[in-house]
């Protein structure tokens, strides 16, 4: 680790702290914002998220070595953490810390993209089902029931079994398309109650068609469950992607997905436990931060607390 990489790391920490301070400042202006920060884990959660985002974005600066570089397979393979290799090296003499930094890109990237897809589909389906009701609602919710009955990982395993290897973009697509069912139920419930409110009747009286009413009037007010689903959804995707990569069906080696790193370190786990431990720790921290932020968001945006 050179001086520059230490500085870059420090810079990432400072940037994350700055993000927390800024978010805190803006949040203090609104009641939901204040409720959000009343959770003791909310601020640390935002810090961890901002930190991972910072190192993912600035990976070339923060990581002392390229993620693919086998430094010296004869002499520095399976080395424990030291000043030179912050988190040790793996069986191919690659720097674990550098791979974790680049791996953040993979986890956050896949997590965000798949979540966006899932939340968009889920919100759309839920809104349509809740707004139109009757047979549209029944059919869509039956579909949701079916979707919820199939464990996500089995669907993905089935696709891999049938078609052989799955490319990463297709992986993102599949993860997204298997993850919208819960969101749709939440959004539907919200829309069902919102559609009885006066502003919907007012919009329709002004001649607005269903699409306009749904997208411009109802959904913005149903934002709360959508936002909470999104935060918690990224966490689920990260865990799922890690699991698939661990099994060898996700992001292919040698790319530094944290799940792949754990798999690669597994055969040598007694000799070099750090190669598998640290990637898993990174996953846990990221998902923990996402869960903490998601929980705090749920309480902050809870309309019942609004009335209290």
């Amino acid at each position, binding site marked *: 680790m050179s001086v520059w990489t230490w500085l870059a790391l420090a810079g990432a920490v400072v940037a994350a702290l700055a993000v927390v301070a800024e978010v805190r400042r803006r949040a203090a202006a609104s009641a939901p914002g204040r409720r959000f920060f009343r959770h003791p884990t909310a601020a640390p959660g935002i810090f961890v998220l901002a930190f991972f985002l910072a190192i993912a974005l600035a990976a070339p600066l923060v990581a002392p070595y390229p993620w693919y570089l086998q430094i010296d397979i004869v002499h520095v393979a399976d080395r424990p953490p030291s000043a030179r290799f912050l988190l040790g090296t793996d069986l191919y003499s690659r720097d674990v810390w550098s791979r974790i930094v680049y791996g953040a890109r993979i986890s956050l990237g896949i997590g965000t993209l798949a979540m966006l897809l899932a939340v968009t589909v889920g919100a759309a389906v839920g809104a349509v089902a809740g707004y139109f009701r009757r047979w549209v609602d029944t059919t869509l919710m039956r579909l949701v029931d079916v979707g919820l009955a199939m*464990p996500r990982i089995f669907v993905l*395993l089935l696709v891999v*079994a*049938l078609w052989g290897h799955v490319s990463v973009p297709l992986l993102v697509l599949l993860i997204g398309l298997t993850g919208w069912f819960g969101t749709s139920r939440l959004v539907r419930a919200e829309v069902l109650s919102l559609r009885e409110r006066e502003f919907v009747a007012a919009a329709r009286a002004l001649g607005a068609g269903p699409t306009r009413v749904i997208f411009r009037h109802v959904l913005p007010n149903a934002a709360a469950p959508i936002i909470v689903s999104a935060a918690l959804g990224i966490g689920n995707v990260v865990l799922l992607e890690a*699991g698939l990569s661990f099994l060898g069906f996700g992001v292919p080696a040698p790319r530094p997905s944290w799940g792949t790193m754990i798999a690669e370190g597994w055969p040598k786990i*007694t000799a070099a436990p750090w190669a598998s431990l640290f990637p898993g720790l990174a996953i846990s921290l990221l998902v923990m931060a996402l869960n903490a932020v998601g929980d705090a968001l749920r309480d902050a945006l809870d309309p019942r607390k609004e009335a209290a």
Partner: protein
Amino acid sequence: MTAWLARRVAASVAIVFTVVTLTFVLVHLAHGTPCGQPDGQPLPPETCRRLCAEFGCDQPLVVQYVKYLAGLAHGHMGQSFGQHRPVIDALGDAIPNTLTLAVAALLIDFALGLALGIYQAARARRFGDVALGNVALFVNSMPAFWLGLVLLLVFAQWLRWFPVGGTHDVVLCPALDSLRCAGDRVWHLVLPALTLGLIGAANTARFQRAAMLEVLGQDYVRTARAKGLSERRVVLVHVLRNALLPIITLFGLAFPFLLAGAVLVETIFAWPGMGRLSVTAIGQRDYPVVTAAALIASAMVALGSLLADVLYAVADPRIRTRGE
């Protein structure tokens, strides 16, 4: 109540049926015939002929679908390419192992989770609650396979308290024929069940805590205290009985989690269950096994959800007496 039950069971059946249909469509999109193999190695002609007779290779899709359903009804789920025997046999060996693991994990999950949740609610916002809450949050965020690896490393490799894998000692206890061998099985079950159970318990504890706190704020708790009941009775009888209701829905949600977790945990602990079978099958391009496993997993999830709904309806008197 019985009308509701009938409708609910019918809905479950419909769901499983739809899953079966979707799976059929999916398999047919990928492979037209049961003889085709992704890497071009054909099945022995005898097997291929037999399969085609059973599933109707050249006939219209609808006929194939009907034959597929008929086959499922008789338990014919195709031939495993990798194991060279019917899928149903391969699964028949594997499913009991997964079920054992799932039940053990479920027990740990609810026993630990409920106890922790009750304790946290009683000590709400004090140190015990906050500390446990953070630990639970961390455990709940761990990948199951990573926790398994850590437990394996610490308790099996370093401390040597538990074995590193498998369901039993194949040398000393090949058959379950004595109390000692039963104990051996339990000993092998501990670490994998703990892996899944701890993560589940962390989740259950959070829900239970929230449910207890919600109930503790209710008026009828104040009434119970005003009657002169001890705090212990108030919490364990009046509060718990109400707080357990939402937990029943967690029971239904546990199945998808356990089955998905089984896939990864079984791999780590070399546990010969459905999950590990599926993973090895993929390596051998043995899609009939994976298809069958996916179907059975979905059926289990649907069943679990049905059980949870029925349990809830029975437990909540407001729903139970609705028909009267």
